[in-house]
């Protein structure tokens, strides 16, 4: 049954009038987002994973180790998890250092893989160490809470909307640290959020929840462009593309980013060749032509095939494309009017050219002068 790498979870039970029936299997690497509207049960699932909540009908195995099954239930303090709550919940009777060392001392590991100095450095909290917790700002408190969880040497880091209680500025202050965490530590993260822009920046795998049930599980770029899911019908529907930097054109300040089925021109310095980057392309920034456009200012006009189409309302459609002439590449979304769809006689399987007006970097800055005003857009192509 188990023995496989990954998290296998099933939690069923009634909590007051709320019925939870969540089952999912996800790989234990990278960031898995438990995503859904408020009240859909995602926090309950996370609490079950930590053992803070025990549902009689539950099963959880992590990389082959059973944490809960029938009568077997590992108490929360015996589970190697780090938990970051929505509010930092620092111990008020301890200093910042005291908070950080609380879990470290109890980890039971002689040579911790995650050292105190590493965490202080990673989260930029060196100058906070001697302060009482009461004088820290919201963002600082949450950084200390993340450090405290990391120092308990977890094999799984559980984060329950760690940014939800923060204001915009504190959020923007903390997101880069979360991304660095993702990059420099190999700890699988489960991240609860109802904010799609946060999830698009951080998550590799998505567990989509709705009214106590798991609606879909899979790689984030696949789910956000899945015609069966509500994402493609949202006003700001967008495709998420994972790519690798191939080259950098210093003269024009453009990077070529290889995604599945195409190469994108993205403004800015995206890093040396081989760097992995993630971009977001809004459906409303993509238009379609039947012939390859010539003499245009649009940098990215990519061949693609129509894979599916979803109605938004009577007049507007979201077209789901697959990049490449053979239509087997990554998914891209385009918002078109019904009139255009009929005039151009678009149909499933048809080869089109997708003209992309803007590509937004999702994972951090592109250049020192990158645009960071709205949180998740690194830069916008002309």
């Amino acid at each position, binding site marked *: 049954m188990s023995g496989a790498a990954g998290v296998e979870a099933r939690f069923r039970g009634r909590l007051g009038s709320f019925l939870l029936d969540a089952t999912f299997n996800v790989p234990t690497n990278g960031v898995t987002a438990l995503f859904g509207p408020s009240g859909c049960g995602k926090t309950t699932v996370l609490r079950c994973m930590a053992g803070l909540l025990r549902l009689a009908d539950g099963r959880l195995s992590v990389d082959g180790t059973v944490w809960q099954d029938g009568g077997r239930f590992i108490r929360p*303090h015996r589970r190697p998890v780090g938990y970051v709550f929505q509010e930092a919940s620092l111990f008020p*009777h301890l200093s910042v250092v005291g908070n950080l060392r609380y879990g470290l001392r109890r980890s039971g590991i002689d040579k911790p893989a995650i050292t105190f100095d590493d965490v202080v450095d990673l989260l930029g909290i060196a100058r906070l160490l001697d302060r009482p917790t009461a004088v820290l700002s919201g963002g600082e408190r949450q950084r200390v809470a993340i450090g405290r969880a990391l120092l308990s040497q977890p094999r799984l880091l559980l984060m329950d909307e760690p940014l939800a209680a923060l204001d915009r500025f504190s959020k923007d202050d903390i997101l880069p640290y979360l991304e660095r965490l993702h990059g420099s530590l190999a700890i699988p993260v489960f991240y609860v959020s109802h904010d799609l822009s946060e999830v698009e920046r951080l998550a590799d795998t998505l567990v989509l929840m709705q009214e106590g049930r798991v609606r879909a599980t899979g790689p984030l770029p696949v789910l956000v462009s899945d015609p069966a899911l509500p994402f493609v019908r949202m006003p700001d529907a967008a495709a998420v593309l994972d790519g690798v930097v191939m080259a950098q054109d210093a003269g024009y300040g453009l990077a070529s980013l290889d995604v599945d089925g195409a190469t994108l021109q993205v403004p800015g310095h995206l890093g040396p060749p081989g760097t992995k980057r993630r971009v977001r392309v809004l459906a409303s920034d993509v238009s379609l032509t039947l012939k390859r456009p010539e003499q245009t200012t649009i940098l990215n006009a990519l061949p693609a095939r129509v894979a599916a189409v979803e109605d938004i309302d009577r007049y507007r459609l979201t077209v789901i494309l697959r990049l490449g002439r053979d239509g087997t590449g990554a998914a891209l979304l385009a918002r078109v009017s019904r009139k255009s769809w009929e005039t151009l006689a678009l149909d499933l399987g048809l080869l089109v050219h997708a003209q992309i007006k803007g590509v937004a970097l999702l994972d951090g800055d592109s250049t020192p002068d990158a645009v960071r005003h709205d949180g998740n857009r690194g830069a916008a192509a002309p």
Partner: protein
Amino acid sequence: MLDPAMGEIIWLTVRLATITTVVLLVLGTPLAWWLARTRSWWREPVAAVVTLPIVLPPTVLGFYLLVAMSPASPVTRMLEAFGGRSIAFTFEGLVVGSVFYSLPFVVNPIRNAFEAIGERPLEVAATLRASRLDAFFTVAVPLARAGFLTGAVLGFAHTVGEFGVVLMIGGSIPGETKVLSIAIFDYVESLQWDKAHLLSAGMLVFSFLVIVVMMLIEKRLGRVR
């Protein structure tokens, strides 16, 4: 004016209050923890019993304690079976009586402090590998320290001022059961007004100091939290 008898009275009273407070902190802490955290049906009845001495006339409490300590009572028989003796009119009897009498004054502030902590800090401790006992001593107790101080001060002060219960089960045996409030009563009865004045004024100052200290503690700890 300050005769040796008076020193003995004060020493006896302080000893009684100190021992009672220590006993109450040891027994009352787990009781307060249980009351603060349990979802058992028994919670309210037990809480009512703990709080009863606030409402109950001390003479009534003393009367029942005296009945329990009488030579014929099952409690005394049991004590005797283990080689003990009746504790009526002894210092030990006073300690037992005071523990009952001052119970709510120690348990209730600690219980309230435990309740004020809420679930979250203990959940945090659990996710940081602290066992329940570990979390109790390293998180719950430090966070409830204002409640502990209030409980200890109130328990001590309340035991010092005890009269009705002592009158019923202690009598007025010098060096054994003659505590301060009994002594004041005796001095007044025997028309030694100056001594009654001295002890009463001392109690007045003591009580005032207790309240000031408590207010300072609450202010100080309230700021830290």
